[in-house]
């Protein structure tokens, strides 16, 4: 797992994909931080609220090539014929993308320190926002990784990941249109938006933590099954 993780992380840090991801993340969070400073507030919550949609757009860029490119260039042969399990390969890929997200999210700590110069930011709120973003990001990365395992095309992987992520986000809007309450509740329960918003409000809900971690684990598991299924086709 460590070998795959190291290779992927190095590939991100030495490629345009990694640079583009970090640049766009820093650019938008910087713009929103500028607004925060302009309004004279000591809360970073507006940044995290707005970064939600940016993440949905950015994560597919991070995950699109993870497995599709390996399949297209047939480099997956070196991975799948090595004495390592599918879980190790998939987890290595997942963690490399997750670490990129951690690097990007770390800018918010710097924003908090800057705010600290002018006022007293609520560090617990900042922490809950960071945790929320990392959990949401982990689930989205796992979805992207799974979709990347289904196709040889990076473009199809990116667009599909964006589509599926958007679907999970828009579920709460769809829930309000459903007549039956139990269906509406069920749909709302799997909405990413509602659960993420709790974190931006400074609420660290255990059930939401478990939800996002479960979503990540399920899609990582599906990715291993997808790789295994390919061997049997």
């Amino acid at each position, binding site marked *: 797992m460590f*070998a795959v993780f190291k*290779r992927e992380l190095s*590939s991100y840090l030495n490629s345009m994909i990694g640079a583009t991801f970090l640049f766009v993340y820093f650019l938008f969070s910087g713009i929103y931080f500028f607004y925060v400073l302009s309004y004279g507030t000591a809360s970073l919550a507006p940044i995290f609220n707005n970064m939600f949609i940016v993440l949905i757009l950015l994560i597919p860029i991070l995950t699109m090539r993870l497995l599709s490119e390996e399949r297209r*260039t*047939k480099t*997956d*042969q070196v*991975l799948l*014929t090595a004495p390592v399990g599918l879980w190790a390969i998939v987890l290595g890929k997942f963690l490399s993308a997750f670490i990129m997200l951690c690097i990007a999210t770390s800018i918010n700590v710097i924003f908090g320190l800057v705010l600290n110069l002018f006022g007293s930011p609520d560090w617990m709120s900042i922490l809950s926002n960071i945790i929320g973003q990392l959990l949401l990001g982990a689930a989205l990365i796992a979805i992207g990784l799974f979709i990347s395992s289904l196709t040889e095309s990076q473009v199809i992987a990116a667009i599909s990941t964006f589509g599926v992520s958007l679907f999970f986000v828009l579920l709460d809007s769809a829930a309000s249109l459903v007549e039956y309450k139990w269906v509406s509740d069920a749909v709302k329960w799997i909405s990413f938006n509602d659960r993420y918003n709790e974190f931006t409000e400074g609420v660290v809900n255990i059930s939401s933590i478990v939800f996002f971690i479960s979503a990540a684990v399920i899609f990582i598991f599906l990715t291993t099954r997808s790789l295994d299924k390919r061997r049997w*086709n």
Partner: protein
Amino acid sequence: MIEVKNLTKRYSGGRPAVKDISFKIDKGEIVGFLGPNGAGKSTTMNILTDYLSATSGSVRIGGFDVLQQPNKAKAKIGFLPEQPPLYIDMTVEEYLNFVFELKKVRLDRARHIEEVCRLVKIEEVYRRVIRNLSKGYRQRVGIAQALIGNPEVLILDEPTVGLDPKQIVEIRSLIKRLGKDHTVILSSHILSEIQAVCERIIIISNGSIVADDQTENLSKGFSENSHLTVQIEGDKEECLKALRGIDSVSEVTVTGQKDENIFEYYIETKKNADRRREVFGCAVKNRFVILAMQDSSMTLEEIFMKLTSTAAVSTDKTQKTKPGKEG
């Protein structure tokens, strides 16, 4: 070292790519896997390395079942696929170190990688980015990754495809050297390559093994009769009469006239018989002069064409042509 039993692979919605094949390969053998494009060579190799799973049948590498104990079986294999699996954004150094870690090799890293690089002669490109390497060097880096961890079995799928003649000679000589310490399976659709490198040949066609024998035995085994082409100076009718009088000769035909009173005869003798001495004795006895004599038994190319043509692919023939080799 390698034991394949009743292996079948059927891709979804298609005909079987590999049909019930079985063979055993002992330690230290260099075996050529020969067949036309689409015969099932790469599929078989991919199953041996666990890149693909078989629909039915079993593969054991060094005693470990590929399906039951994949990691133990795969630890014994070094695999070079048809297209070397190279990360072109990495340097050779980074790539080989990555493979070393991926395979969880427990040797002295620096020394082992240095040895492998020396063996495949890539020291001078060690720090270069793979993207900038020639096809020949990329192929060598591909072989180097297969050698990392010093696996007992090397599986090389078309290792010389796309290389220039000089590179082909170099890679063949490298494979021969590797064969001294490893069990090697080499696939190719180029006969001369297999002949040059391998001690044993498995010919596969339409997913079935149609021949499996030592390289030199194949020609003998497939010629139903031996043939001689002889140029003799002397009266044509007398020559024909004399040659037909030899017990082991079954058929004599005149294939051409080379000069006045010099004719070329095509002599068919009974199965696997070398009748050159008898023909020579007959000529001396009848005071004919033999100007040329050539063994015209089937070449490997002819055998290959015969076996891989649709008409030749029959179960009966398969059984006849691989005595004692089936596992």
